[in-house]
């Protein structure tokens, strides 16, 4: 049997090998340089963030035992041995949880309506004027970059303590986020129907209503549902700054070391978020078919 692999002459081979080695070495050097830079950035960041490994390791036991403590009742038993005692405040908590859901629902809907009103001005292909496009885009950018809890902090002072501040904070943040997503859908829409409608002499408003809206409305609803999911999470911490919902109860429990309450409230939040995720996922699938699921 002969070996079919042809061997290149020595001279040619050395040249090729050298070129290969050079190429690999350059790639490795770049990778090494990138890694060194990244590690340097991490070290600088570690100094900046006052990372202290000694406190971390001496107190890490605390982190593990924290979960042990929140799963223990005042009587010293495990929480699940006495559900009545564990969820003693379930009436109050469920009421607050319902308030949380309502805050996120109302906030999302107001946000979606505002975003709906603004998004045609923020899409390059439908904006009636360039300056309007610029202004609306900056406005939306501002609304989405400032975190909703910062809005909540300010609104609590302006509108007083309570869920109203939370709703408005979530609404404004959602307007920013949804406005951007909505306008992106509009930019991807087919413009031929718009031309068709415009050629019949229709106004800008009719063009939007009869040519753009039918193409984009399903996408809007899908994004709004997704936003609702996110907002449920956000609304659960609005209470930290006094803007309504279950967060109020949670921060009190954590700060005052009511251990078993912490686990009970956390568990209700996790289960709710989980159910909402499944529910909206199901609804999106029902409404828009499986391709609209992200």
């Amino acid at each position, binding site marked *: 049997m002969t070996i079919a692999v042809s061997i290149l002459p020595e001279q040619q081979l050395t040249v090729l090998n050298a070129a290969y080695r050079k190429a690999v070495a350059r790639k490795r050097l770049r990778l090494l340089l990138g890694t060194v830079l990244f590690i340097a*950035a*991490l070290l*600088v*960041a*570690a*100094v*900046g*963030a*006052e*990372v*202290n490994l000694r*406190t*971390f390791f001496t*107190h*890490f036991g*605390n*982190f593990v035992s*924290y979960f042990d403590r929140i799963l223990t009742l005042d009587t010293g038993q495990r929480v699940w041995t006495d559900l009545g005692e564990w969820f003693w405040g379930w009436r109050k908590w469920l009421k607050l949880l319902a*308030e949380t859901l*309502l*805050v996120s*629902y*109302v906030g999302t*809907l*107001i946000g979606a309506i505002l975003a709906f009103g603004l998004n045609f001005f923020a899409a390059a292909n439908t904006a009636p004027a360039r300056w309007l496009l610029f202004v609306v885009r900056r406005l939306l950018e*501002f609304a989405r*970059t*400032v*975190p909703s*809890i*910062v809005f909540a*902090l*300010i*609104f609590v*002072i*302006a*509108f*007083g303590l*309570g*869920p*109203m501040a939370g*709703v408005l904070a979530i609404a404004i943040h959602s307007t920013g986020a949804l406005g951007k997503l909505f306008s992106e859908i509009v930019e991807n829409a087919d413009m031929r129907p718009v031309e068709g409608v415009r050629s019949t002499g229709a106004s800008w408003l009719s063009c939007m209503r009869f040519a753009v809206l039918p193409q984009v409305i399903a996408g809007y609803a899908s994004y709004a549902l997704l936003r609702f999911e996110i907002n449920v*999470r*956000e609304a*659960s*911490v609005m209470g*930290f*700054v006094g803007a*309504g919902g279950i967060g109020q109860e*949670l*921060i009190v429990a*954590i*700060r005052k070391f009511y251990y078993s309450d912490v686990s009970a409230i*956390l568990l209700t*939040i*996790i289960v709710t*978020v*989980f159910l909402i995720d499944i529910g909206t996922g199901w609804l999106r699938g029902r409404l828009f078919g499986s391709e609209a699921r992200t």
Partner: protein
Amino acid sequence: MSRHPEVDTVQLRARHPNVFNRPASARLATPAMLAAALALLVFGLVDLDFSPSRFVAGVNQLGWITMMMIPPDPGSSLPLYLKALGETLSIALLGTTLAALFALPVSLLAARNIVPSGFFRFPVRRFLDSIRGVDTLIWALVWINVVGLGPFAGVLAIAVSDFGAFGKLFSEAIEAADQKEVEGIRASGGSALHEIRFGLMPQVLPVIAGQVLYYIESNTRSATIIGIVGAGGIGLQLAEQIRVLEWQKVSFLILMILIAVAAIDFISGKLRFAIIGRRPVV
């Protein structure tokens, strides 16, 4: 005058019965859903104590606050704020990196093509889900109890909550990877570890790098807020200045955050482009 061609509506109706005679349930479904959504909205507004007078008073107050914010002015605390901003960026960078390091091995366990048995995969997935179900702010509160007030608690909070998110995203990236390369390694006699290292990782790492960069971006935003509960960074300053109603400082801090986030967006966008090209991340 041109005339439209005669349309035989009777025949059309006969041919497409479900276009012309939609059952009442189909015609009423959309209006009914809209009405229910609106009814819930109105109920919510009433239940959450919305009243026009309160709203108008609040907007007035808000307008007054906005007037007080202009012009933004840091007073004499600019160095302090710059340090706080540095702290925030450090928290975002370190937290995200830590999360990615720990999430990578766990995400392998949650991926269908690595662990085919649902019996083992299911608990890992639920574990990641429950970590994601808890907001970063809550994790920050827990870590403050453990390592004390300060930015370190913020790093750990971001690390834990992103660990859940990364675990899910990475495992999806791994499941989307091409199996042919893995099979090639197996065919040439590689072990399971070789399959992962030489078959999967080269495909998955660029995707993961893109996701990590994207999260560093979004964590700059999260890192600004965990200060509100005492976990360091610029959020701490912001919350304090809001509480003492120093509106000029507040607007200055918000401006700083906006500029920092825009800068990070720009840089990580460029890096992402260099690593994975123009591809959507999430």
